[in-house]
């Protein structure tokens, strides 16, 4: 506690690790290390005090140096007595840190001095870190940041929106992420398979649901987030979101009968044919290998049949002929060709489209008249502040994923857009729409260069928060995501990535890319992640929090003991609120 108080007063407990010897804003600052190199790691968060200013930076490199290369070449240990050798090496051989300065903060005159009080009055609101605009002076002492410094920059865990994602690698100080900022713009979580990306995502989603400042819609392609599962590496049970937030999370299965393993779906989603638009089909161009003539055909279908185009087209027969009165074979009236001839488009093209759409026609979750309006249920739940996990169950092909995610997202965005417009029209009568985060797995399938123009997702990424809908993109191949979308992602959290292109993609559009590149390449799988982008004050690599029972206890408190017969009635009588 004493430590904490003295930290608050601005004195940093950590001893100096070195002093500034050169460098600048463009190139990194050079810091002469005065402690063994093993005490500091790449990615360490350091502070530098120079007069009234405190600078915050990130160690991006460690370099060995010598006053004369010959001192480095010569193995003096064998020639000199130990103490002389130590002295010699201390003076002629050294380690320099390359420190990327990121933020600086005016701390005013010394705390407790009379000048401080008057300064504080003048600068009541200004004690906050700003992007670095100057450099610390020569010989400014450099220290590892302690818990108070980190809290100053990244905020202090508050059990709500300031969410601890992990700890610093050297000293294990908690590093937090502002979840409100995370959802203000679209964000991304990246990492190769086995890098711990799923657990990290699960923790952040748990944080979002617990904070409850936004609804989340999770397209759970691999059934990872909703139900309880087993960790693939440790074999330990990994609780899912639905079990931990039972009142808040709705499990939705795509198509009748889709469940969540041991858990039944709360309701199932079937999509009426009438909800399918030509755009939905066009997005499948690549998957279905559609021809250039497709838009024309779809256009004709829509203008001819209106909303019912899909069901009408589905019911047509392909290549059906009948004999006319002259005994000549002509297209039957219910055939594709007959319709094509009628509306004046190429019969071959229409027939080809009809045959290719065969895969879509027989999706079991597409129904002429579904038993319930699942789509509306999803929207209602989201608007009511609940969270929806959509499981694809057996429908796990790219075709299903593309079709369903786009269709649902478009509908939802339309609903949110309408609500936003209403809200802006009359703020007194209409409620502000509830922020919504749409979580997309395997995002490169929806946001790659070819698809990005067509899918609703790139529109959402570009609009940012205009209609209160943002994306949380989860992917293992960020290089496959269209760079224009990538550059819109505010917060990026990346676990280890193997591929050079993926690393470059995660860093696209950010300052100090070169310095961060090495750091990202050297992250330890399963343990470390790099947070960067608009949503975090400065980039920082951290050891990510473990997804275990302790995480849940920290987040939700101790689990309640099972209700026994004796205690049960008492407990029920007092109406103990469900923390979920």
């Amino acid at each position, binding site marked *: 506690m004493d430590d904490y108080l003295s930290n608050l007063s601005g004195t940093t407990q950590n001893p100096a690790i070195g002093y500034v010897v050169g460098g600048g804003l463009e190139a990194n600052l050079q810091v002469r290390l005065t402690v063994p190199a093993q005490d500091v790691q790449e990615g360490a968060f350091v502070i530098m005090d120079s007069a009234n200013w405190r600078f915050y930076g990130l160690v991006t490199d460690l370099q060995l140096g010598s*006053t*004369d290369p*010959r*001192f480095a070449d*010569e193995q*003096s240990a064998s*020639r*000199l*007595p130990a*103490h*002389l050798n130590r*002295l*010699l090496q*201390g*003076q*002629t051989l050294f380690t320099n840190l390359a420190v990327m300065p990121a933020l600086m903060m005016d701390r005013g005159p010394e705390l407790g001095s009379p000048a401080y009080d008057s300064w504080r009055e003048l600068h009541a609101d200004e004690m906050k870190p700003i992007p670095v605009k100057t450099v610390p002076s020569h010989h400014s002492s450099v220290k590892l940041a302690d818990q108070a410094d980190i809290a100053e920059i990244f905020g202090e865990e508050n059990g709500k929106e300031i969410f601890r994602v992990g700890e610093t690698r050297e000293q294990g100080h908690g590093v937090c992420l502002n979840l409100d900022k995370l959802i203000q713009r679209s964000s991304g979580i990246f990492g190769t398979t086995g890098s711990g990306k799923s657990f990290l995502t699960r923790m952040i989603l748990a944080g979002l649901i617990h904070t409850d400042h936004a609804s989340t819609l999770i397209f759970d392609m691999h059934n990872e987030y909703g139900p309880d599962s087993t960790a693939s590496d440790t074999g330990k049970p990994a609780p899912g979101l639905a079990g931990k937030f039972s009142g808040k999370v709705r499990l939705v299965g795509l198509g009748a009968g889709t469940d969540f393993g041991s858990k039944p779906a709360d309701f199932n989603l079937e999509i009426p044919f009438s909800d399918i638009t030509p755009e939905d089909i066009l997005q499948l161009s690549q998957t279905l290998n559609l021809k250039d003539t497709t838009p024309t055909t779809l256009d004709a279908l829509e203008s001819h049949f209106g909303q019912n185009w899909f069901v009408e087209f589905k019911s047509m027969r392909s290549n059906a002929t009948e004999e006319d009165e002259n005994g000549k074979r002509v297209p039957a009236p219910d055939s594709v060709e007959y319709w094509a001839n009628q509306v004046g488009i190429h019969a071959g093209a229409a027939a080809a489209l009809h045959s290719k759409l065969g895969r879509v026609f027989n999706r079991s979750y597409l129904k002429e008249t579904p038993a319930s309006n699942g789509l509306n249920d999803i929207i209602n739940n989201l608007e009511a502040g609940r969270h929806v996990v959509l499981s694809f169950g057996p429908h796990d092909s790219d075709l299903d994923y593309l079709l369903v995610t786009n269709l649902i997202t478009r509908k939802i965005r339309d609903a949110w857009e309408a609500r936003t417009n209403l809200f802006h029209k009359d703020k007194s009568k209409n409620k502000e729409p509830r922020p919504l985060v749409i979580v997309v797995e395997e995002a490169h399938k929806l946001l790659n260069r070819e698809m990005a123009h067509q899918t609703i997702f790139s529109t959402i990424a570009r609009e940012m928060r205009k209609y209160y809908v943002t994306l949380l993109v989860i992917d293992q191949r960020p290089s496959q995501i269209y760079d224009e979308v990538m550059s819109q992602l505010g917060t990026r959290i990346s676990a280890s990535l193997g591929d050079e292109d993926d690393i470059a993609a995660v860093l696209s559009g950010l300052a100090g890319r070169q310095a961060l590149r090495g750091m990202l390449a050297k992250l330890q799988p399963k343990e470390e992640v790099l947070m960067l982008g608009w949503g975090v004050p400065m980039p920082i690599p951290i050891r990510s929090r473990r997804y275990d029972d302790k995480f849940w206890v920290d987040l939700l408190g101790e689990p309640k003991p099972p209700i026994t017969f004796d205690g049960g009635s008492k407990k029920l009588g007092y109406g103990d609120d469900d923390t979920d």
Partner: protein
Amino acid sequence: MTTEQNLIPIGKLLRADASSFVAGCRVKDMQNPKFGALVKVALEDGDEIFGLIQNIVINDDGLVRQLVSGMSIPSEYTEDNRYNRNLPVEIHVLTVGFKHQGKVSHQLPPKPPMSLDKLYYCTDSEVVEFTSHGRFGYFRHILRMEDQPVEELLVSHLDKARAAHGDKTNLDWYAQACQELIVSLRDDYQRLANVLNALAELE
């Protein structure tokens, strides 16, 4: 070095300039001056000028030349030459500082000592007082020397001074001195390597 010894002058001033001076002693007193020792000249006004013995020169004369070139030299001749000879042994001293009104300074004295001033060894406590004043400022006088075995002088001085500082295992002063030398010479690889090699021989 006993106190008694320090009261006996080891020589008298022959000549001096701002940064060095030369004293002379009789050949028979040759066992006294030691290379690298800290010595002082006591001035009449009570001030003292400190220096390090940087060189000891024995000059020849006609008689020595004749004796050297002779077939064999009777031992009386050698004795006679050493005890009764008129030529002094020259003790070359590098001025490294002075003491004025009891205060040590590592600067050069305002004026050099006068001829026939007496040269004394410094006592251990004087060595400690002089060498631990400030931060080894007097090293600069040594390191400035050219055409001299600077490394040897340094090492000889450090060895004697370390002994004066007492327990050999207490390396504080010595370690700081070594560090200072390394800092001063770290941009001169060859010279530093020579000094360190010489220091290594002390161990």
